[in-house]
């Protein structure tokens, strides 16, 4: 008999929100960001800058900007510059400019009233706060796609141009946008496009050896010594490289494999644990978004997931989805929401990239919204939903 001790030393190092002190194979891009925004500590207030970080899922966009934010904030503090780095995920803000700016304002004024004014007014208030506190702001808009999808290019336009009416005062607001795909730029109007495009930082997907380096780094911090043999790491790197160089997926695999090793009370993380982990992780659905949905969004999604599980159709019409939802509502003893509300949910879920919604167009009688689940298996989604619904 011996007491089993976990293969982990510090699991938090594998959390998706963890920002490691160094990023293998992203030195050049980090340097570039630093060059673009050097002036914010050298000559604050003289100018502002906009940059765009482009890269696929798991290419390190978020972590790159966050690491940059930490380092520039430190540098600013050292020099006594009142510089703030604020990172906002537009998708979490449901693609609303108002919510994005509100998050920023609340950082400066935690008791700022929550409603009763427009996004434009809020933006003006933000500029006023910055003026009063003589503060400078680097605002990172993560998943900028969501904002543009939801509100078109106008919001972005007003954000990039808010400085221009105020040439006399100090320039305080710089912006970093993060997108997955430069195709987004084509949907913007010409002037917004040109202001963003000037400074483009492209993150190529990680290659297999690069993924290995990242995994080695994380493993050394998260696992006890000699618990992860190199063939397991190799396998993870290979799997993640096949997923399009997705480092987030790689790290999640590593974590899950460790978990499986723990449940079997194994001394090492074997390739078999990795395989098991791989079959249970669906790379593209963001598990962290599901708990943020409200009850009826979850129920609605559950209805859709079950309907898809039972049939092999590629799409559900809005009507079918509503029927499925009605059944779920009965099961949970919830009064069902009306059509308009559900339609809104579909729009929101599609902005969050959980379902895809498209108009049926002509060809069948009438017009309906067709809903599909391109990224997750219905069974997996159902499992995930039941977990958060607490059954």
């Amino acid at each position, binding site marked *: 008999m011996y007491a089993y001790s976990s293969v982990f030393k510090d699991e938090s190092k594998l959390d998706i929100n963890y920002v490691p002190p160094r990023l293998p194979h992203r030195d050049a891009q980090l340097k570039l960001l630093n060059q673009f925004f050097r002036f914010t500590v050298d000559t604050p207030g003289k100018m502002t800058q906009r940059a765009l970080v482009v890269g696929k899922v798991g290419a390190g966009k978020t972590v790159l900007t966050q690491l940059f934010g930490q380092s520039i904030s430190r540098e600013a503090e050292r020099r006594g510059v009142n510089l703030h780095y604020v990172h906002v995920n537009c998708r979490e803000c449901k693609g609303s400019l108002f919510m994005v700016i509100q998050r920023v304002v609340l950082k400066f004024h935690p*008791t*700022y*009233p929550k409603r009763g004014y427009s996004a434009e007014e809020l933006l003006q208030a933000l500029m006023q706060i910055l003026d009063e506190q003589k503060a400078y702001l680097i605002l990172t808009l993560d998943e900028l796609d969501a904002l543009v999808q939801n509100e078109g290019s106008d919001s972005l336009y007003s954000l990039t141009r808010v400085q221009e009416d105020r040439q006399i005062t100090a320039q305080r607001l710089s912006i970093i946008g993060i997108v997955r795909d430069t195709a987004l730029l084509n949907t913007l109007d010409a002037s917004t496009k040109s202001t963003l495009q000037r400074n483009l930082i492209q993150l190529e997907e990680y290659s297999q050896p690069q993924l290995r380096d990242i995994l080695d780094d994380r493993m050394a911090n998260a696992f006890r010594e000699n618990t992860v043999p190199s063939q397991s790491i190799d396998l993870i790197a290979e799997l993640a490289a096949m997923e399009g160089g997705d480092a987030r997926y790689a790290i999640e695999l590593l974590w899950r494999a460790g978990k499986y090793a723990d449940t079997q009370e194994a001394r090492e993380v074997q390739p078999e644990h990795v395989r098991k982990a791989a079959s249970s992780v669906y790379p593209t659905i963001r598990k962290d978004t599901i708990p943020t949905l409200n009850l009826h969004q979850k129920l609605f999604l559950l209805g859709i997931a079950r309907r898809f599980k039972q049939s092999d159709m590629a799409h559900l019409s809005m009507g079918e989805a509503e029927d499925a939802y009605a059944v779920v509502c009965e099961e949970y003893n919830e009064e069902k929401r009306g059509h308009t509300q559900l339609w809104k949910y579909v729009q929101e879920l599609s902005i969050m990239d959980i379902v895809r919604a498209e108009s049926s167009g002509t060809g069948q009688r009438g017009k309906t919204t067709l809903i599909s689940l391109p990224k997750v298996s219905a069974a997996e989604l159902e499992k995930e939903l039941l977990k958060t619904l607490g059954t």
Partner: protein
Amino acid sequence: MNDQMSIELVFSSKGRVKILKILVDIGELNISEIARRARLNYTTTNQHLQVLESSGIVRHKNFGRIRIFRFNEENSRAKRIKDLMNEWDK
């Protein structure tokens, strides 16, 4: 400088004292929120705040249409009232 308000007038109103306590606790707040927390209506709250402002104890900042009130840190009386209230609730 300010209209001198006698001390009994400032503290004779339960509403005003409540508002001051809220501002001590929270720091900065808009009128609706002060009203909500003090369980007063908007107009009353507004009037109390006007009185307190004219005696120099609180001040406000405008953000567009929004007014945000807080203690007037530059006023030595306001500071002492704040200290007293902090002391009281310990």
